[in-house]
């Protein structure tokens, strides 16, 4: 019996060793590794019969006589991506940060300028996405936009009056008490108040932030929860009626529940751009630029856009009839949500759509501490603390009494 166990163990070791050899050195030495760091679920990855973009890129390189292997890893937030890069412990070739994070990374000299002759497809990017506030110098381009999107209100038409849904005020509407979902990150949650009260979202004024906190505290009893990805399930199965999230994600929720509707609040909203950048320390800048260019190819762009439902700044994709037809199959007015007029007008209309900009450290800290104050503060929790405290006290007194009694017995 023991011999068998040892035999099995040896086999496992050998097999694992072999796997490791395969995964670490796939034989030929001229293989180039490209480390790509993107948001989770933000690329067409070959699931559900879609195109596997990274595999396509490897194939494309092979045709050019290069042996490239894409190491594709994912992050969940700009901040965790930033920390990982800033620690200096890892090196990536292509990363996908959002606007304000790009601004910060350029300021901290963490990004390489791109050689646009290697990225000919840059010409297909709409002009309004070129030289944005976070990367303003057309002579030194650091980022190529990948997707953009904006926040809006998603509501269930079975329970919510459409006329309530055109304003951020719906998140404070007592009619929907207990059925409202709020963002579970400080920037977006404070953003909902700031847009509602027409306060600049990038303000440094402490009093204004405190004012917003009061609003959020007032909202807390009405809110079912502070959530991110749970929004999908809660909205789809109707356990919540009102939520704020991104337009692209509304379309993927709508696929499963056609009672849902989307509105852009009249007071204005937040737009964001996620762009492709090459961080300092990249090992194969040319291949990385090739990868960025490849992402702007029409077929690849369409595959990614129909996978994520986010809006593309790429003219080739956005104006492609096949793509539009595919999106219209998801929702009859899909393109209105994907490429709304206020963005087509180059943000010039009366409608206010603003970016979150990089806050200074002091404001950032203030926001985080206010957010914690909101999350910790609450009447419902006090009861739990009291019960726990009483139980702990009871156990301690019980133990002390026991110990004292035992000691007495000894004497």
């Amino acid at each position, binding site marked *: 019996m023991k011999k068998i166990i040892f035999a099995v163990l040896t086999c496992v070791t050998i097999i694992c060793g072999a796997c490791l050899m395969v995964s670490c050195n796939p034989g030929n030495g001229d293989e180039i590794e490209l480390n790509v760091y993107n948001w989770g679920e933000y690329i067409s990855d070959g*699931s559900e019969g879609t195109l596997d973009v990274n595999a396509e890129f490897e194939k494309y390189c092979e045709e050019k006589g290069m042996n490239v292997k894409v190491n594709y890893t*994912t992050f969940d937030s700009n901040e965790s991506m930033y920390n990982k890069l800033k620690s200096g412990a890892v090196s990536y070739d292509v990363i996908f940060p959002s606007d304000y994070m790009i601004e910060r990374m350029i300021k901290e000299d963490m990004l390489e300028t791109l050689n646009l002759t290697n990225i000919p497809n840059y010409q297909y990017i709409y002009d309004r996405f070129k030289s944005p506030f976070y990367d303003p110098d057309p002579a030194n381009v650091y980022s190529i936009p990948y997707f953009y999107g904006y926040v809006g209100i998603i509501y269930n038409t079975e329970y919510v009056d459409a006329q309530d849904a055109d304003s951020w005020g719906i998140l404070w509407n007592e009619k929907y008490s207990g059925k409202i979902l709020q963002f579970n990150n400080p920037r977006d949650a404070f953003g909902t108040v700031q847009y509602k009260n027409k306060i600049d979202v990038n303000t440094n004024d402490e009093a204004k932030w405190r004012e917003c906190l009061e609003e959020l505290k007032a909202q807390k009893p009405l809110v079912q929860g502070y959530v991110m990805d749970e929004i999908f399930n809660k909205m789809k199965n109707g356990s919540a009626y009102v939520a704020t999230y991104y337009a692209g994600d509304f379309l993927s929720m709508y696929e499963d529940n056609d009672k849902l509707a989307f509105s852009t609040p009249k007071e204005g909203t937040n737009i964001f751009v996620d762009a492709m950048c090459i961080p300092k*320390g990249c090992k194969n800048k040319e291949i990385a630029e090739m990868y960025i260019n490849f992402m702007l190819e029409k077929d690849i762009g369409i595959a990614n856009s129909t996978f994520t439902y986010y809006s593309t700044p790429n003219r080739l994709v956005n104006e492609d009839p096949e793509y539009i037809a595919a999106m219209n199959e998801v929702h009859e007015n899909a393109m209105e949500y994907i490429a709304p007029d206020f963005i087509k007008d180059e943000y010039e209309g009366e409608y206010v759509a603003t970016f979150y900009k990089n806050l200074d450290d002091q404001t950032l800290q203030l926001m985080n501490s206010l957010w914690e104050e909101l999350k910790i503060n609450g009447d419902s929790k006090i009861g739990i603390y009291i019960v726990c405290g009483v139980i702990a006290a009871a156990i301690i007194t019980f133990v002390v009494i026991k110990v004292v009694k035992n000691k007495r017995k000894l004497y």
Partner: protein
Amino acid sequence: MKTLSRIFMILVFGILYIPMLVLVLYSFNSSKSTGNFTGFSFKWYIELFSAPQTFTALRNTLILAAFSAIIATIIGTMAAVGINKMKNKYIKASVMSVTNVPMMNPDIVTGISMMLLFVFVGSLIGLSEYLSFWTMLIAHTTFNLPYVILSVLPKLRQMDKHLPEAALDLGCTPLQAFFKVEIHAILPGIITGMMMAFTLSLDDFVISFFTSGSDFVTLPLLIYSMTKKEVTPDMYALSTLVMVAILILMLATNLRGEKHRDKLKKRIKENV
């Protein structure tokens, strides 16, 4: 009283197993939604084996868990044997508490300190990339060690001290005595330790998060990065498969234990 205890037992098992059953149920759901069950299908299982990213992550997780478990078992067993042989009980106690530190420490402290160490050492020896599969392996082995030591030590204490002495008497070298006699006596402890190390490494997130490099992703990391968008149901399918595998493993070990016990009983009866 009996019905009361039965109700209590049902309640406990219910709380333990209902979440898993729900997960299994929804892994067979035909739509993405977790709110309503729209129909039975194997879609997500097929999906699981066709999505390359999930598959790589699964392979990485298994490789990492197997390797760190094996290395931790070897080092841990050696450490346990050494600790057991210590004469001075104060030194013994202090060594034990030092080895237990990685277990007592919150994961986040272990993770961050490991990362700082790797960055520091990496910059000292001039690597271009400090974190990789190897740093993750070191980190996982480190936090697995105390569990192996803790499961091997009691077996060593239970073992008859005169067993290795007898082996030495009969002409074994100390090393031979260990491999021919001692290791057989403590094998159950070693196996338990290894299984524990394997499962711990399998589902570790926090330490992996801080020590993972740019080209090696494990499943927990992959699932976490999905949380801004939606966790796809092929993860439910994957979790179901892992659960079934563990269930089979547990059943097999327990059944083997029972068989062994039966055999022992029989032998004792025959001898009497």
